[in-house]
């Protein structure tokens, strides 16, 4: 089932055309890798999908409805959720508070104005948050402010928040950049275990990861889709090797 349909999308900044006629469909449950040289327009493309930027031309459909003009918060509520390439967290708040805000949103706005039904509503939120923190090994540090974490640790929070939202399509922008090998392994493991019906799009420059996870690859080059095919084809594609992989060996 097609969950996302991108139709001839263009994006330009001033005179600069960053994305040119990008079109493709995404089916539910697909794991898609997005690669391309630096500055190819990958992040910009994610920005268009989430509504952080609006396209100069073209249309985006999600589950059949046209969402091109929708603001980002509406799209997030539809389940289009992203992580950021550059950490974008609530620095002055604790890890727990960051997470609570996400969970609170997920469970709807019903009781958000007053906490009169504190026990019922809050207890549920808290126990869910604490469970999550536990699985991420952050329970002990849940009251530490995010700004006091190391860079790699913040990257982890970034991903945790994305997954905690229970999205229907999750856009990960270089999730493991800045993470050490062991943390990377952990994240990859976690991503493989995500529910089947969840759709994933991942931008990554770590080829091991991307080829390990993706069932389908989209190569962006200079603002257009160079290839949209299986990982095997992409791996052996001479042009991809030339513009993107260089001499780097692939395990």
């Amino acid at each position, binding site marked *: 089932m097609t969950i996302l349909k991108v139709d001839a999308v263009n994006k330009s900044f001033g005179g600069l055309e960053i994305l040119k006629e990008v079109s493709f469909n995404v089916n539910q449950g697909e794991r898609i890798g997005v690669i391309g040289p630096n500055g190819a327009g990958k992040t910009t493309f994610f920005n268009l999908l989430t509504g952080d930027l609006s396209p100069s031309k073209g249309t985006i459909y999600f589950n059949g409805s046209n969402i091109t003009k929708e603001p980002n918060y509406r799209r997030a509520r539809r389940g289009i959720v992203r992580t950021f390439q550059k*950490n974008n967290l609530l620095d002055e708040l604790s890890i727990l508070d960051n997470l609570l805000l996400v969970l609170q949103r997920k469970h709807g706005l019903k009781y958000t104005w007053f906490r009169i039904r504190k026990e019922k509503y809050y207890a549920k939120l808290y126990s869910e948050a604490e469970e999550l923190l536990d699985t991420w090994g952050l329970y002990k540090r849940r009251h530490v402010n995010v700004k006091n974490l190391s860079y790699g640790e913040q990257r982890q929070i970034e991903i945790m928040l994305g997954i905690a939202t229970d999205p229907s399509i999750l856009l990960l922008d270089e999730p493991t950049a800045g993470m*050490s090998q062991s943390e990377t392994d952990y994240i990859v493991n976690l991503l493989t275990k995500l529910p089947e019906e969840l759709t994933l799009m991942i931008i990554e420059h770590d080829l091991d990861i991307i080829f390990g996870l993706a069932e389908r690859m989209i190569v962006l080059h200079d603002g257009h889709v160079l290839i949209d095919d299986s990982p095997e084809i992409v791996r052996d594609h001479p042009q991809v090797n030339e513009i993107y992989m260089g001499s780097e060996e692939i395990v």
Partner: protein
Amino acid sequence: MLHVQDLHAYYGESHILHGLSLKVEEGKVAAILGRNGMGKTTTIHSIMGMVARREGVVEVNGHNLISEQSYNISKLGVGLVPQGRRIFPNLTVKENLLTTQTNIKNGWTLEKVFDLFPRIKERQHSMGGNLSGGEQQMLAIGRAILTNPSLLLLDEPSEGLSPLMVGEVSDIIKRLKDEGITMLLVEQNLAMAKKIADHVYILNKGRVVFEGAADTFDEEVQQKHLALSS
């Protein structure tokens, strides 16, 4: 060239580095490896004078810099490629490069940096904050080179770069090394670190738990010190 002895660093109450020592010979490259949150960036920042409370000895070229201000440390020839790039968003690419350019006589100029990274030459009039992640990383490297340092601190310079660019940056670092620049490199990309570094340190919770020449850093060491369980 760089000599760190018994370095302690603190953020407020928390004690992060516990008597760390390391050494980089003139013209060599040393790599610091370690899992997230082990104190790599803190080490770099302590050398650069960016941690408020630090104790011990940090000697560059025989000067003890432990209590110097960071701008003086920079003027003494220490360059920094920071983690997370930290490009000035409201400056154009060109301004990012030129504003802090110093010691022009030492050889690095805007043109040469543009030659290294043609991609940022194309973007030279864009605002730094509008660049893509990888472009910013290149810019951060270029910016540091243009301060014409004799000691360069690189904190995860390959982050966000495409594999092709990782290769190119490795080549650039080698080239800098050939020109006699001493370097201290923090990396998560072990392959790259192995390829470039002469010497390797592994940090764990603010202490050096392994040190040795690059070729002694093998699978076993990696398993022992960098796996999740440690």
